[in-house]
């Protein structure tokens, strides 16, 4: 298992380093002179030159890269051009919000998706199966930012059942920071009112974010269960006279849930992508919203930093999924 982990790390680190190089070069080479942009329209040549020197933009590219690399390795992403705060601190502040949103979506999509997928497989070719199959293709074709706006329109604006945006109403304070997840932190300090409020705020964004993943999980669970049920051992158990339920629950499920588990890892990528638009729509103060703001204000250092941090999270999640996968199915970690 340790060798397996090491091999994965050896693959991941060069990829992340390559990402850093590509993004750094793009940021340094392509856009207009950042010093001139920062100085504004009325700046003199001397002023621009001074900004260029303080930012180190007059030095050779490899020196700038080396400087940036050593800073990044110490967790220093520089100062945001527009918020004038350290980008690392900005990101740390928002990480919890994104983790909370994606985790809730992931859990919802996995739990509901697997149940629906098994249901569709067991009731194969029934009406339920056809409806679920349409949902499982349709969910992937929906633009999540559109369905988010539609649900906002219906449930928040017209019916007033759920809050429109944010993580908490302005009347409630954020719970003390332990995990950064309001749902957990509020319970840790025993504030049920904050827990209920943050739960009602997360329902809509988490649900819309989960739709694509839910669709994928339904689809893979269904086909995996259908495949398992065609095995000889199921036919044998049927012949011996086991009731359907006792065949499905312990035997079929255990051998057919491996495929959906690998899907959870892939799903995480689509969750992170989806979170960018969803966070912007619901004013959810996470990494995705921060990225959109950085993009709209041409804050290149922040764009670079968020991309890297997302890359690290993504790599971490993929390794965790591989480890779980290896535990469930030992053939994988041994093969390498």
């Amino acid at each position, binding site marked *: 298992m340790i060798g397996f982990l090491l091999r994965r790390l050896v*693959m*991941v680190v*060069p*990829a*992340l380093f*390559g*990402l850093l190089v*590509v*993004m750094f070069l*793009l*940021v340094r080479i*392509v*856009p207009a002179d950042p010093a001139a942009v920062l100085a504004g329209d009325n700046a003199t040549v001397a002023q621009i030159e001074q900004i260029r020197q303080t930012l180190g933009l007059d030095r050779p590219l490899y020196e700038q890269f080396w400087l940036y690399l050593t800073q990044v390795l110490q967790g220093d992403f520089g100062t945001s051009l527009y918020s004038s705060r350290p980008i690392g601190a900005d990101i740390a502040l928002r990480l919890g919000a994104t983790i909370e949103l994606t985790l809730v979506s992931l859990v919802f999509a996995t739990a509901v998706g697997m149940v629906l997928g098994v249901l569709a497989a067991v009731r*194969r070719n029934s009406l339920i199966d056809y409806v679920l*199959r349409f949902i499982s*293709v*349709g969910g*992937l*074709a*929906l*633009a999540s*930012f*559109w*369905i988010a*706006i*539609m649900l*906002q*329109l219906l449930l928040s*604006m*017209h019916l007033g059942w759920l809050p429109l945006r944010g993580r908490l109403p302005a009347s409630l304070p954020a719970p003390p920071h332990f995990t950064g997840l309001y749902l957990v932190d509020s319970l840790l300090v025993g504030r049920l009112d904050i827990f209920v409020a943050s739960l009602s705020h997360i329902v809509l964004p988490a649900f819309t974010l989960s739709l694509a993943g839910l669709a994928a999980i339904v*689809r893979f669970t*269904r*086909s995996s269960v*259908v495949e398992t049920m065609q095995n000889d051992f199921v036919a044998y158990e049927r012949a011996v006279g086991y009731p359907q339920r006792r065949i499905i629950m312990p035997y079929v499920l255990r051998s057919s849930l491996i495929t959906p588990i690998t899907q959870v890892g892939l799903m995480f*990528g*689509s969750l*992170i*992508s989806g979170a*960018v*638009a969803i966070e*912007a729509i619901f004013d959810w103060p996470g990494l995705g919203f921060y*990225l*959109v703001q950085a*993009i*709209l204000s*041409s804050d*290149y250092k922040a*764009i*670079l930093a*968020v*991309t890297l941090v*997302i*890359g690290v999270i*993504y*790599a971490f999640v993929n390794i965790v999924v591989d480890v779980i996968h290896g535990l469930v199915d030992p053939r994988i970690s041994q093969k390498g």
Partner: protein
Amino acid sequence: MLILRRFLRDVPAVIGALIVLTLVIVAIFAPYIAPRLAEAFDSNLMMRLKPPSADYPFGTDGLGRDILSRVILGTRPALAASLIVVLGAMVIGIPLGLIAGYRDGWVSETIMRVTDVFLAVPQLVLALAMAQILSGGIWSAILALALTYWPFFTRTVYSETRRVRSALFIDALESLGASRLRILTLHVMPNVAAPVIVRATAGMGFTILTLAVLGFLGVGAAPPDPDWGLTIAESRQYLPQSWWYATFPGLAIFIVVLGFSFLGDGLRDLVDPRLRRSR
């Protein structure tokens, strides 16, 4: 013709093919089909934010333009842009996949490690960052998407080429002295074409969706383009009163993407019956 008959028995695939065919026809003849071509671009403040009616089946937008006509005209940028993205990604990705799959050693290793770099971040995030750095606008979005999509083709072609390479006929060609270029283009490529076509079909729908997100977030199409994602972004300031404003462009995206994924699934079942999604 057996293959055609089998395809026609797959109802969702036929529906998908019909949707895609309709999309192509509508996109080609958009200016003739749009009922109010002039009112698709000219603002008419007397007519702004009118709900759907017989004259304006999809209603009018914040500048009094006919949303139906704009949705119809929006098929053009959606289809053209995603076609360029997918073709561009294929042009970059397929040759690299062929080379990496056919050769061993550092060339192959380098190519595959570079794909790792581009797959280290979810595609949308990387495309979003790149599109902004490349200064925004629809062409930046197209370039960014093509530059982040090619590794998917490289991966597919790579594993297929590896499979074909060990076949006996490749050995035979090599011993006859066929050049590497000839083997790759005339003999390996046709054998890896099927999964590539399947991926490209599904990728068209996926790219339309991603382009809509980029347009929505403000790094794709710019006003006054009739881009669907952009229209949905514009509609947000007129909610909750003007529900129709975002509804119809969003439905258009849904139907088109659904069409491509139905078609893609159907093609995949034809190419590889083992993967058939359901029996």
